């Protein structure tokens, strides 16, 4: 298979403008003749649905939630980057582009990243116009902060609820289009499979989560905006419902899955406190602007933090990375925390965290300034842990948070199945091997507001599509398969609950394909996952029926797909015999423990082709070329 990314020719800063001119347009009067399915209503899905509706397409939008506003984009706390240079501190599109390519450890496409930086400025304007209440200065202009390892202040924010406010902006735009009749919303409908006819994506099969009814929906184009797969680890910062099913089923129908092993472990989450824990809570990384991270110098030190004198504390990030300190990129901060805990210097009752200490900031700025900046986060921390972070340092530990991998897409955000576009976290395109803070919101909205609405027209204007209806034999066949899978899960009538399997799968993956990986561990994990997966299908117990609200059945289907994905993640991590970004192979590190890339052998995207159940998937390669940002070893020292 030839993986053509369809990157326009010319200088990187001219590619998008040139491409926009060269793309075919759909006549305004014809747009309403095209039906587009959008699955997912997070930042990417809601913004795409609204914008396509405004353009005049007939949009059918699906969400498994009761309302589009519940999508997990809502939980993003920190902010959204844009190269506005409002602070006059030397930011520019070039700098945002450079930082993102470098931050991704040179495993993203230059052309995509440049376009992302370019449209970032339009996103802020659009959101302001919608009424997103971004933080302001006294003079009325927009406020910015520095965030997640950036040396300029380019992050826009709305208290600690930026994701919520941006999502509500997109949701309101979507509501407006629903009222106008251009968008039809299908709430509580979960996509179970993709319908491919004559090699093109032509629809989806979904299950109504109230009635259990499984049926087909057909269209001229299918857009997946279904988010990431971090919940494969069971414990992650994702919402409980986040899952891989939509993109996994598309993968099984022919869409290549790129870089599945690139997962981001976020450094500042509240450590696990027991076996029954259902999710991990992220504490915004903005806390690292003022908090100092430390552990005791000696292992096994059980004194309460206040009794450990300065001289016996190790502010390890400040020590190892004097210029970036506590603001070192996520992958680095996470790995160093793991190292400290592995050395037996972890803190808290389970010795599974590190301190994030605000004592200095409170001394320097006063408690009221700290409260103004982080008050809601401190409250949230206290609610969960019962400890007051103004008095005793927070405890944090890394947790799975974001997945850079996803379905492979070309420059037009189209997968290897014509007519299947993939946007937001569900695709692999812009973050390489590590995503920078405040860049996920930017990418979701860039794709939905400003990229897909153009590129989808280019596809539709040229595709010669036959009319089909949901009675098409291909639709019926996919429905049958989906119903069969549900029936099989209900019929297993085994002894173990879905969650017990999911927890065990998550543990294997976290230990062997988490923050650090090695060849032996990955080999073991592959064996364990395959064995557990078999046991799952034989011994899972799903109570209830299919024609009803059945949350266990919903989870059972998602976990079945997580098993297959987990194998692919380990395989991808095994073959990528280098360290880069969030993918840290212990065999490949510099003498001082940093990730050591192997650009000779791995300066490429790995995109996997499904070859059938139990068969070895096939690995394809898209070479990455760096013409503008020179390949260097990342250094944050």
């Amino acid at each position: 298979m030839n993986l053509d990314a369809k990157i326009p020719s010319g200088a990187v800063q001219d590619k998008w403008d040139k491409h926009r001119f060269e793309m075919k347009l759909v006549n305004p009067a014809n747009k309403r003749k095209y039906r587009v399915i959008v699955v997912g209503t997070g930042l990417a899905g809601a913004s795409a649905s609204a914008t396509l509706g405004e353009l005049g397409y007939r949009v059918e939008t699906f969400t498994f939630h009761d309302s589009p506003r519940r999508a997990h984009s809502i939980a993003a706390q920190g902010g959204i980057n844009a190269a506005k240079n409002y602070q006059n501190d030397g930011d520019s599109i070039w700098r945002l582009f450079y930082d993102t390519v470098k931050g991704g450890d040179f495993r993203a496409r230059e052309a995509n990243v440049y376009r992302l930086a370019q449209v970032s400025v339009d996103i802020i304007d659009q959101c302001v116009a919608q009424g997103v209440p971004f933080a302001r200065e006294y003079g009325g202009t927009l406020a910015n902060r520095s965030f997640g390892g950036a040396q300029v202040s380019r992050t826009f924010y709305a208290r600690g609820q930026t994701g919520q406010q941006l999502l509500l902006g997109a949701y309101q735009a979507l509501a407006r289009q629903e009222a106008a009749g251009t968008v039809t919303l299908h709430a509580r409908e979960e996509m179970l499979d993709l319908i491919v006819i004559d090699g093109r994506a032509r629809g989806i099969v979904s299950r109504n989560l109230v009635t259990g009814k499984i049926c087909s929906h057909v269209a001229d184009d299918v857009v997946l905006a279904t988010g990431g797969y971090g919940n494969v680890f069971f414990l992650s910062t994702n919402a409980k419902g986040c899952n891989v099913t939509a993109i996994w089923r598309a993968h099984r129908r022919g869409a290549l899955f790129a870089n599945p092993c690139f997962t981001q472990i976020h450094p500042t989450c509240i450590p696990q406190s027991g076996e029954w824990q259902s999710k991990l809570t992220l504490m915004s990384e903005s806390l690292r602007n003022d908090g100092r991270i430390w552990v005791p110098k000696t292992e096994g030190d059980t004194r309460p933090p206040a009794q450990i004198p300065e001289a016996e504390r190790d502010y390890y990030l400040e020590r190892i990375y004097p210029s970036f300190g506590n603001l070192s990129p996520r992958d680095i901060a996470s790995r160093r925390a793991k190292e400290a805990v592995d050395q037996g210097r972890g803190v808290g009752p389970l010795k599974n965290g590190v301190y994030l200490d605000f004592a200095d900031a409170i001394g320097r700025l006063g408690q009221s300034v700290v409260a103004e900046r982080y008050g809601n986060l401190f409250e949230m921390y206290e609610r969960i842990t019962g400890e007051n972070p103004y008095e005793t340092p927070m405890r944090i530990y890394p947790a799975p948070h974001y997945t850079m991998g996803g379905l492979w897409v070309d420059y037009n955000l189209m997968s290897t199945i014509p007519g299947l576009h993939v946007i937001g976290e569900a695709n692999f395109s812009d973050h390489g091997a590590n995503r920078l803070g405040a860049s996920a919101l930017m990418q979701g909205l860039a794709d939905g507001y400003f990229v897909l609405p153009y590129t989808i027209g280019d596809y539709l204007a040229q595709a010669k599509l036959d009319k089909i209806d949901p009675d098409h034999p291909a639709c019926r066949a996919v429905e049958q398969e989906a119903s069969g899978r549900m029936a099989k899960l209900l019929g297993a009538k085994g002894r173990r609950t879905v969650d017990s399997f999911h927890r065990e799968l998550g543990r294997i993956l976290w230990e062997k394909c988490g923050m650090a990986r090695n060849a032996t561990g990955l080999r073991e994990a592959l064996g364990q996952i395959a064995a557990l997966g078999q046991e799952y299908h034989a011994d899972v117990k799903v109570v209830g029926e299919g024609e009803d609200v059945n949350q266990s059945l919903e989870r059972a289907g998602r976990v079945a797909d997580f098993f297959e994905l987990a194998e692919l993640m380990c395989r991808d991590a095994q073959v990528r015999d280098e360290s880069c970004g969030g993918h840290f192979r212990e065999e490949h590190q510099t003498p001082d423990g940093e990730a050591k890339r192997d650009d000779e052998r791995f300066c490429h995207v790995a995109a996997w082709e499904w070859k059938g159940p139990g068969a070895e998937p096939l690995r394809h390669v898209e070479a990455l070329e760096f013409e503008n940002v020179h390949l260097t070893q990342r250094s944050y020292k």
Partner: protein
Amino acid sequence: MNLILHVWRQVGPRAPGKFERFEARDISDHASFLEMLDIVNERLEEKGERPIAFEHDCREGICGACGVVIDGSPHGPHRATTTCQLHMRSFRDGAELWIEPWRATAFPVLKDLIVDRSAFDRIMQAGGYVSVNTGNAPDGNDIPIGKDVAAKAMDAAQCIGCGACVAACPNASAMLFVSAKVSHLGLLPQGQPERYDRVQAMVARMDQEGFGSCTNHGACQNACPKEIGVEFIAMLNRDLRKSILSPPPRPKPSSAAGP
């Protein structure tokens, strides 16, 4: 800790419901309320019994999906706390808890503790937005907004759409929800052109959905996990009165549809 739960069970919107008694044994006081329900459910499933259906997603207090009435209080006993952020250390060992869904005509029960809140979405469709197509926007800093105005708008915009205000209201009114959106947009310059149409349309839709009227009990603001205050209801009432009694001159808004 050990607890006794009385949980509302109902198989569907038209089916009769009733409380069912469960024992929740050996629960860690660090577990969240929903994790306690997870544990109860997993034990039910192990015995082959139907687990309790409840809605939840982010489990960090922001998506608005979760919410049950605990001993008569929506989202339980604490201020500014969603059900998912409530931890078992808030209850005493041996406590007996009564757990119910939101109760409102406009929120029919779908199953057990899950209700249908799509009426909120329809109220939003009636006018809870600024009519601006993608690509229409001026530069962000062309619209200066004072820090205090932005902060006030943000106070209102924090609403997570959970519906606790409706559950708390003796009239099952959605005034707090509607006023939060009306005030968020009405406070900002971007929301001015449609300000008075918006308030009329959203209130009309609220009435049509079967929510009750506001009689100033204020129970909503106590239940609100984001502490949205009744001052926004006052703001809504001012705008609504003005829109009826002395409507500012304005052109009829054009259709929101694209070409």
